């Protein structure tokens, strides 16, 4: 029993996926029993979360399965919030036409989550590559899930082409590592990269290219707006949160395990990338008319902020990245959740569709307030403390200029996030008749929104214990 504990969440996810396949034929199409699929998935994910938290907590970091996986707090922590994000996304799926009645959608989501869990704990190049592909392929399918919708098909296809290309580059980087060292275990490699020579530079660039795609760092961010815009909104939400966090998990592990000796060299590269990512993301977000594209660029910018913590490369730095990602996942899931609801009810993702939202549904308006202010980094929402810790880590490590770039960027961000709130709270519908156009929100979505809002407030005010977890995760890396 003890041997399978490190992969207990993965095993349970697999079981859940199989159960969904089994149940599917028993629920005839288009009957009132179809929502059961969604509830079953969400319940299953909640069960996995609870069981894993109770039984499968790691102690000291240990390599398992012949060095394929590392059982530590970083991996475990990330796994737990992937499962959480998948659970919340399931609730949003249930509210989305064409997704809610299809067992495949839930199955693909769970498969992608399984891949992410493995990504977070892989300690071997081969395992890592497999995990990344296990994550990516279901996500390509989900992005293109709406077959009748050209945009969705385009999104799926584009995502796949870009993904395949960068996977190849990543694989090439991995093969170079293997070629030069003859090893594939991440934790055996650090001695081979003690100087910053041509080989190391080449490998770092190739590997970064692959991972930059996953976390949408500049200049590998081009896919994000198109894919987020075309993909079904809950899928876009999942892509921009869990998938991105998984990329960061790999990034953190790779750089702390393989290249710690030359951190002073690559951190400058990452600092430049972070600067460009934040700036480009924020500046282009300013000009967007569609809220989904705006959120896509904002999520690019947020990858840049999180990167600041990686650049700092200290215990506090890594802890702050982990905390940042937790907060960001909650916040962006909420933002995309709201976009999904409004998109479904009004049929549009333009800013105009948000006019008078606070009169049509005050509670939804408040949820939007929480989401966008948290993205902007305002207390008492989690965005503020998350940014504060990241900047603090940067300054501790002497990166004052990077912190200044970060805060300047957050001012730009504030502008366009407030712009959304302007539509929600200030502008009226054309006929000024919001009272007769109330927005009715379904129960499942309300559950998801409430969970996320509470999470954002909780992490934003009582951040001590949560940051403790993040620190634990960071400690397991050093």
């Amino acid at each position, binding site marked *: 029993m003890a041997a399978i504990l490190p992969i207990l969440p993965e095993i349970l996810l697999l079981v859940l996926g199989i159960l969904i396949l089994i149940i599917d034929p028993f629920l005839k199409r288009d009957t009132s029993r179809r929502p059961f699929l969604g509830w079953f998935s969400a319940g299953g994910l909640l069960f996995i979360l609870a069981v894993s938290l109770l039984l499968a907590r790691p102690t000291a970091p240990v390599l398992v399965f012949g060095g394929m996986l590392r059982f530590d707090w970083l991996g475990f922590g990330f796994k737990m919030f992937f499962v959480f994000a998948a659970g919340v996304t399931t609730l949003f799926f249930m509210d989305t036409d064409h997704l809610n009645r299809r067992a495949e959608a839930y199955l693909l989501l769970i498969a992608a989550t399984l891949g992410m869990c493995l990504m977070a704990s892989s300690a071997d190049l081969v395992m890592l590559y497999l995990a990344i592909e296990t994550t990516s392929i279901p996500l390509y399918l989900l992005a293109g899930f709406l077959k009748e919708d050209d945009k969705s098909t385009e999104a799926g296809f584009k995502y796949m082409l870009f993904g395949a290309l960068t996977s190849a580059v990543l694989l090439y980087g991995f093969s170079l590592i293997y070629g030069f060292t003859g090893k594939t275990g991440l934790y055996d490699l650090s001695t081979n990269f003690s100087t910053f020579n041509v080989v190391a530079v080449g490998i770092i660039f190739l590997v970064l290219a692959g991972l930059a795609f996953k976390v949408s760092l500049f200049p590998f961010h081009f896919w994000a707006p198109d894919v987020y815009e075309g993909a079904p909104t809950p899928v876009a939400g999942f892509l921009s949160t869990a998938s991105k966090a998984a990329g960061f998990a790999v990034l953190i592990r790779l750089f702390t395990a393989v290249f710690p000796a030359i951190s002073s060299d690559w951190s400058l590269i990452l600092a430049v990338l972070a600067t460009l990512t934040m700036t480009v993301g924020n500046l282009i977000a300013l000009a967007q008319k569609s809220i989904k594209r705006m959120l896509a660029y904002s999520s690019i910018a947020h990858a840049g902020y999180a990167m600041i913590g990686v650049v700092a490369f200290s215990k506090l730095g890594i802890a702050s990245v982990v905390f940042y990602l937790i907060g960001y996942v909650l916040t962006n899931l909420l933002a995309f959740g709201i976009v999904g609801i409004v998109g479904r009810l009004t049929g549009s993702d333009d800013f105009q569709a948000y006019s008078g939202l606070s009169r049509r549904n005050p509670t939804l308006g408040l949820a939007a307030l929480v989401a966008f202010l948290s993205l902007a980094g305002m207390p008492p929402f989690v965005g503020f403390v998350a940014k504060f810790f990241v900047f603090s880590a940067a300054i501790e490590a002497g990166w004052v200029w990077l912190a200044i770039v970060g805060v300047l960027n957050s001012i730009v961000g504030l*502008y366009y996030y407030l712009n959304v709130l302007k539509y929600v709270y200030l502008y009226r519908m054309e006929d000024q008749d919001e009272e007769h156009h109330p927005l009715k929100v379904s129960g499942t979505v309300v559950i998801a929104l409430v969970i996320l809002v509470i999470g954002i407030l909780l992490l934003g005010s009582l951040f001590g214990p949560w940051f403790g977890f993040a620190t634990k995760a960071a400690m397991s890396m050093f």
Partner: protein
Amino acid sequence: MHFPFLSIIVFTPLVAALIILLYKPEQKKAIRITALSAAVFALAMSLWVYFTYDKVAVGYQFIEKYNWMPALGISLHFGVDGMSAPLVLLTGVVMVTGVMISWGIDDRPREFFAFLFILASGVFGVFASLDLFMLFFFYEIAVFPMYLLISIWGWIKTREYAAMKLTLYLFIGSVVSMIGALVMYWTSGMHTFDMLVLETAKFTPTFQKIWFLPVFLGFAILGGIFPFHNWSPDGHVAAPTAVSMFHAGVLMKLGAFAALRVGIMLLPQGAIFWAPLIMGLALVNIVYGAFIASVQTDFKYVIGFSSVSHMGLVMMGFATLTPEGLTGAGVQMFSHGIMTALFFAAVGMVYDRAHTRQIPELGGMIKPLPLVGIGVIVGSLVSMGMPGFSGFIAEFPIFMGMWKTHALVAIIAAISIVVTASYVLLVVRRVFFGKMPEALEGHIAPIRNLDKIALVLLMTLMIGIGLFPALIVPWVQTGVQHILALLGGA
């Protein structure tokens, strides 16, 4: 552990905001009553804190400390000294009067009061915080509701522009200061955000000189310091009445106070080095603000620019770094808060009835609105520093401080007194006396009883302090002693 007065004061508005949000939007009356009772409760608590503050014992009192995040040395650390106790009281007063005056808000009052109270919590939090992290935390909480309050309930013509301008200015200021604060935190090597500990950090003079300016100016933006004052008149004018009161009455003090507490008190050497510059900027504030105010035709803009001028006096008081100047600045923060709250309340009442704020289009208002007229007259007397009113108690020591440091500055600044007297009296004469325009004849309804209570409360305070300076000066003086010790001991 004594009774946690300060936590209760800080969190009362927040809890009230949450309760208000739980009401249905239609339950407007219940929402208003909840708001008023919470405000009165907070005022009662702050009165208690103010009057039980031990002036003999000096130093921070009502201290509460809860470890919030020991790993980084963040704690929820509250305490008030002679500088902040009056400001906590001021916030309580403005909160109560603000709610009374906003009784008539009919468009989404639920959201209005909720946002206003979140703002109030932030303000209380900044005044009471002894922890640098928490100070920023509450500071930002005080900033963002401003955007919504102004843009939703503000004056339709400029609200979008003014709200965004204000928010961006203040946010830029606060993040710049935040970087400075983080640098202080890591440089001190003490791993604590506790300001009482950081005061003893002994930063090198070079460090203090480099970082004083960003930290001080970052906060001083909210205090309306020249050349970053531009957001404030626009913001004041665009905001709905209660928000203008809060904004000019309390929020600008927030900036000045934080600039004092973080800038001057943590980096005293830097303050001494840069004092001439701050003095210069403040001088521009005082004189230029007064001149600009005197050429405005919009009643509300007059008050808006007069705030710039008066906040310049606060900054000037700080920059003198003398006991007189600092004491005056402390009293001025309180006095100006009350005065400007009254002015904006009065402007709001006139505007609600006359639907114009253009001074040439108004006149004879004293007849239908006698109490408002009296209020504005009292406010004007305070504004020009007439003895017997709180303004005199504040401005006189500031001028003494100026005289002690640079006599010339005092002479130039004194011009503003004349200009101020001219424009406030002009406004009083044109708006409240003279002949009422025919268009307004018979359209001016009397004010509500709640409005009357609010006006009387504000007037009482201004005259009370003017006649009995002992009601505030000893408090401020105890606070000043501590600041001087830091300046001298550094």
